[in-house]
């Protein structure tokens, strides 16, 4: 009797546990579905050609998101160029050079730790910092500052992935470079970077996905602009800031535009994430 009781108890506990975990998974999936569903319902209804052709309107008038889309692409593009250059070089330093001497090794550890801190630092603080170095001195919000803030968020991501990917490369690759009589920098550029290009691209895409939805650091760096603007030294409109401003406004048509903007960003970010998955899947296969 006692044995049966214990077995029952264990079975009940197990069933409860299994039910609980399954419910947890169901909750997470329904959350994602609910978010995507409401995005589609609210966003698609506002979607039309004007969104891509007209600039953000005054309340109660016709308009689109063209200036914000262009602005976002410009800010993210400039930010990514800087972030990839800095991130790949810094990642290379951490993976290839920091083992060369004890001093470099110690420096590498410090950089690695602080890079991780930067990676998870609240983005709004990065915005505050950039405000101090790139907005206050020139007495005006500007696109360069916004790009700098986004770049500072993206660079640690690229650094981290570059280092991880380079460390995965076989020692023989490095030795083969040396055996051919190539100097180290040529080996790194022609052999290691090429071998890791897929992984580095993945990291860059993930960084791009991350910054394309970043709002907080843009609020007081690039600010926003009601009009189409290609001049990086002036305030530049961007999707996240427009969503923030329009979403919290009291005007129906502004709110509708905010939903469309949110749909566009979410769609872009999710497609990048899926693209990354497909890319890394193909690498595994080849």
């Amino acid at each position: 009797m006692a044995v049966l009781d214990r077995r029952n108890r264990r079975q009940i506990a197990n069933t409860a546990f299994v039910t609980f975990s399954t419910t947890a998974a169901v909750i997470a999936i329904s959350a994602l579905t609910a978010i995507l569903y409401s995005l589609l319902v609210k966003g698609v209804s506002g979607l039309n050609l004007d969104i891509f052709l007209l600039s953000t309107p005054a309340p109660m008038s016709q308009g689109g998101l063209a200036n914000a889309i262009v602005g976002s692409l410009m800010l993210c593009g400039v930010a990514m160029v800087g972030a990839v250059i800095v991130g790949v070089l810094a990642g290379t330093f951490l993976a290839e050079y920091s083992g060369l001497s004890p001093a470099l090794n110690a420096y590498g550890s410090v950089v690695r730790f602080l890079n991780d801190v930067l990676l998870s630092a609240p983005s709004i603080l990065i915005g505050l910092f950039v405000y101090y170095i790139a907005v206050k001195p020139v007495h005006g919000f500007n696109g360069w500052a916004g790009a700098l803030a986004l770049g500072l968020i993206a660079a640690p991501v690229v650094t981290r992935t570059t280092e991880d990917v380079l460390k995965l490369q076989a020692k023989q690759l490095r030795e083969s470079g040396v055996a051919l009589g190539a100097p180290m920098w040529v080996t790194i550029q022609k052999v290691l970077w090429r071998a890791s290009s897929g992984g580095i691209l993945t990291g860059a895409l993930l960084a791009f996905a991350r910054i394309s939805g970043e709002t907080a650091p843009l609020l007081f760096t690039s600010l926003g602009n009601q009009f189409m603007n290609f001049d990086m030294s002036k305030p530049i409109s961007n999707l996240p800031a427009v969503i923030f401003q329009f979403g919290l406004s009291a005007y129906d048509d502004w709110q509708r535009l905010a939903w469309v903007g949110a749909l566009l960003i979410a769609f872009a970010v999710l497609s990048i994430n899926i693209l990354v998955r497909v890319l890394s899947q193909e690498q595994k296969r080849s």
Partner: protein
Amino acid sequence: MTALPATTGETTRTRPAGASFDPIFLGLCAAAATLLLTALAGIVVSLLIGGWPALSHFKLAFFTSSEWDPVKDIYGGAGPIVGTLITALLSLVFALPIAFGIAVFLVEFCPPLLRRPIGIAVELLAGVPSIVYGMWGLFIFAPLFRDFVEFPLITWAPPGSIWEKLFQGIPNGSGILVASIILSVMILPYIAATLRELFLTVPAKVRESAYGVGCTTVEVVWSVTLPYVRRSAIGAVMLGLGRALGETMAVTFIIGNSHAFPKGLFDGGSTIASTIANEFAEATSDMHTSALIALGFVLFVITFAVLAIARAFLGASKHG
């Protein structure tokens, strides 16, 4: 038989052509690394310098007073600081069991056909930008929450009981609790994904032998898997906490943005990040700006501490 020439034990090699660029390339790489270092140092220094006027003017009152009055130029940051800690901790309380459940589900008994899609879906949740969560929280979730949770609970709470205190506040769908719930949806995928990866590091042999002696799933997870990954799991949870602390936009949308101490779970509040996001661009005086930056400094110190602890727990296992 001719004697081989005596070797010194060292082989020499002609310097490859172009080797003179090697130190320059090293320099470039080191400079990039230093740039990241400088950026972080710059953040700390600029926050400290910018916040110093407020910190030195209000001294301890900055941390203890919740009077935030731009008109009288008096700034006490206790409201946002406490709000940050409460929302972050609450969101962790909500997210942790669910994230744990998902991780266990995916590792232990998910049908193989569903394993990848669900894993991907959970990771996609992590990719959704925070402003989208904010919109969704404000327009979709908050009204539902107000009608189906806040109203019933407030009417149900017996007067004079602890529940009445807890459920105090205007039931308008925004407030501390809603913000925490949205935050928990945001940090959930991070924690779940990391936990899942940790669980997968447990050698199959160990888990299978536990099953072999007749353990049920719950016993395997509690007595084998969890003890095996304990340290790293704490690190993963701390990383999630770090995210919740610094999260800005979603919270700004739905926390209600009042600077006083929140009186109950449904009452409006503010976090450090939401206060900065709302007021920085429109700060009325130098002291106001400085107070906001001082809040930023406090946030940095808190997140830095949490991250350092997370590192210490995750630590050696990642980069060894």
